[in-house]
């Protein structure tokens, strides 16, 4: 059985285990947007990259597809990994700023600026829906078309599919179709406070029946929140962030 070290911890895993599974076994949190148990690993979102030291070679590899090989040294949160993930999430926010899941990731990772023009895409092509349809629903009704910048998730010929049973599994699994809170300042690309756990929404809207999960964005203080009019509640514990 392969034995490897993750963040200095030695772990023995079964042959065929991926690095992501090994990390999850150790309780190491690795963010991902395209991985779901029960679906074949894909490696498209690149968020789950970890630093892999294999002999003399040090490289970033997507942990969901990289096999846990004997003698590997893996770092799940090294400076290189964190920097790469942060730049990646910045790109995700710019592509799909309306997604709550992505905004949450950005907040949790301390992404403080978005230097690109917002695109408001509806899809990040994580391929979850395609795999869900094919591997769990056995329908294969949707798939990718095109390549590069023309790649998209479609039904063949953009017409009603013969094999689609309208089960809705694709919608269920989509990580980005859950909209972010439309609170004040929702216009900006980077969410500057989905304000559902403070009173801001209630100050602005009498009937703000907000039922979203608390956003990480609201739990963080810092210079980039200068425009937030609401003082955060003092009892909230702030997650530790690398201050640069």
């Amino acid at each position, binding site marked *: 059985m392969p034995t490897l070290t993750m963040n200095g911890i030695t772990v023995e895993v079964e042959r065929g285990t991926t690095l992501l599974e090994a990390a999850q076994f150790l309780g190491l949190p690795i963010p991902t947007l395209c991985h779901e148990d029960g679906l074949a690993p894909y490696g498209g979102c*690149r968020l789950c990259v970890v630093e892999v030291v294999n002999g003399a070679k040090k490289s970033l*590899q997507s942990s969901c597809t990289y096999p846990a090989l004997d003698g590997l040294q893996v770092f799940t949160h090294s400076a290189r990994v964190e920097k790469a993930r942060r*730049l*990646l999430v910045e*790109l995700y926010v710019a592509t799909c700023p309306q997604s709550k899941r992505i905004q949450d990731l950005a907040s949790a990772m301390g992404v403080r600026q978005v230097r690109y023009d917002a695109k408001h895409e509806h899809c990040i092509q*994580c391929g979850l829906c395609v795999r869900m349809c094919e591997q769990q629903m056995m329908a294969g009704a949707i798939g990718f078309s095109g390549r*590069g*910048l023309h*790649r998209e998730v479609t039904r063949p010929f953009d017409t009603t599919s013969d094999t689609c049973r309208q089960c809705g599994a694709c919608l269920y699994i989509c990580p980005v179709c859950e909209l972010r809170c439309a609170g004040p300042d929702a216009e900006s690309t980077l969410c500057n406070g989905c304000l559902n756990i403070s009173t801001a929404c209630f100050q602005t809207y009498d009937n703000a029946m907000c039922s979203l999960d608390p956003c990480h964005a609201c739990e963080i203080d810092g210079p980039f929140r200068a425009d937030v009019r609401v003082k955060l509640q003092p009892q909230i514990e702030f997650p530790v962030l690398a201050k640069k």
Partner: protein
Amino acid sequence: MPNHGAYPLRSLEDLQAVAELGRQRISPAQPKIMIGMATCGQAAGATEVLEAVREVVAQDKLPYVVSETGCIGWCSQEPLLDICIPGRPRVTYGRVTPARARQIIRALPEPKPQWALATMPGDENTLTGYYTSYLAGEDTPLRGVKSYRDLPLFKRQLRIVMRNCGLIDPASFEEYIARGGYTALWQALRTQTPQQVVDGVTKSGIRGRGGAGFPTGRKWQTVREAPGSPKYVICNADEGDPGAYMDRGVLEGDPHSVLEGMTIGAYAMGASEGIIYVREEYPLAVARMKDAIRQSEVAGLLGANIFGSGFGFTVRVVTGAGAFVCGEETALIRSIEGKVGEPQQRPPYPAVRGLNGKPTCINNVETWANVPVIIARGGEWFASIGTPGSKGTKVFSLVGNIENTALIEVPMGTTLAEIVYEIGGGIPGNRECKAIQTGGPSGGCIPASKFNLPVDYDSLTAAGSIMGSGGMIVMDDHTCMVDIAKYFLGFLEDESCGKCFSCREGTQRLKEIVQRISEGHGVDEDLVLLEELSWMVREVSLCGLGQTAANPVLSTLRYFREEYLEHIHHQRCPAKVCRQLITFAIDPVTCNGCGACVQVCSGKAILGEKNKLHTIEQAHCTKCGACMDICKFDAVTVN
């Protein structure tokens, strides 16, 4: 192919018999006329020349042999015609038109030295040294015509991969054997164990010629030891790098060298099936290769029990469907399996789990073509050529703004300066050389100030570029580096498979930023963003395409930062390429009102009657530059 009664070939003697036939074809008793009929030759008009020659020979009932040959690599002089008269040097004529060809043929045996480009020793064709050096052989000069050995373009070249290109008829199996072909296969199969073959290749130190430079011997050893059956060998001829066409040159000019190399490799690794994956843009290469396979099958050099050794091997050609990313080995395998060419996670490497989940060895055309020579002359001989880290020779396509556009093969370690200024003959039109782009979209631009760099895998990587497949595009001072970066990003955003978010979105965003700069809307911060984003795309992406996608940006930023700053700070394009930053004007003094520009203007923006001064209406000008191209009096200026 006529059956000479000797098929299937079983012994060295059988080979010798075929070689004798080949020698008679290469140097027949009658005068022979050869025409370079590779795709580039045909594009330059060789088909018409060949027709004209055949016509004249038939009409005048001349006792001449007319033969096709591959590309000798002298692209700027295409179409090429060669006359070989027994006992005399071979004479090459360049830029031949059908009319000129008729004149040359009718004047024979008078060689018309005034039209000749160069002469080559007559016996060069039949030498079997497994390489071609134009310095070898006795030459009988033709008055006023240089010999190949004195031409800067050829004299430094050492041709191992291209040993037969332009010297033999690629459609002739016999001519290949006459040049020593298939003896290495006999040697490997009948005198060496598979492990000895692998050891020979390891000893040669050859590294993969497809771009990444992985040691070939090590790859072969892995495949040889990997459990699983059947095993496959694949020839990667999906030459997608724009500006590189050496693989096409070899496939069209000497297809059997690749087949022989693959068969030797298959024997060494225990593979039973071979696939040649050729891109669909090379129809002639596909045809030549299929022909070569058929010939080898007839001769018993493919199929069961080759040379009576008990070893069997078959090869088939698979045509690509048009995707740059399929040059990546895992994507190539997916494409052969009938899927989209999305690269896969390595490990497992194809050497362990490749095509159909079986051990697969993928090597580039050039690598395979080197193999017979390594076996025939020994690994030590091969290792004596080149530099400590990079052995042997490398074929480069020298194109762009250069005097001699050519396919050249030089020992590793030759400097860029030697390649550009000596072999390539410098930049035409007294312009300044600015940079050389190597390695295709994954490579980078190396500035003229770094031309003392020896060309090998490690030096190029250290300079921020890569060896790649060997395309070298020379750029003069009329090339804008921001535009070049934008060009490659446009290429990559289209050719990325699109699976990795970082590569798909990253290349688009990089292009967005560079585009902004090229339009004069950039800010200083954009350069920081470019660098950070480039870093991320390189680190995070899965395959070679993504990991190197930012190289064109990073290398131009590294060496030509002022040019970016010029666009940003002064909204000026020093090379006068970026359309948003230039304006065309007509010089009132030089313009004589000929009207050529008025007719050619794509935006109908040029006003003025015949014989009167023309003016450009800026609002309608599309900045295509056609007026400047057509003006014979240099009256159109750009600023």
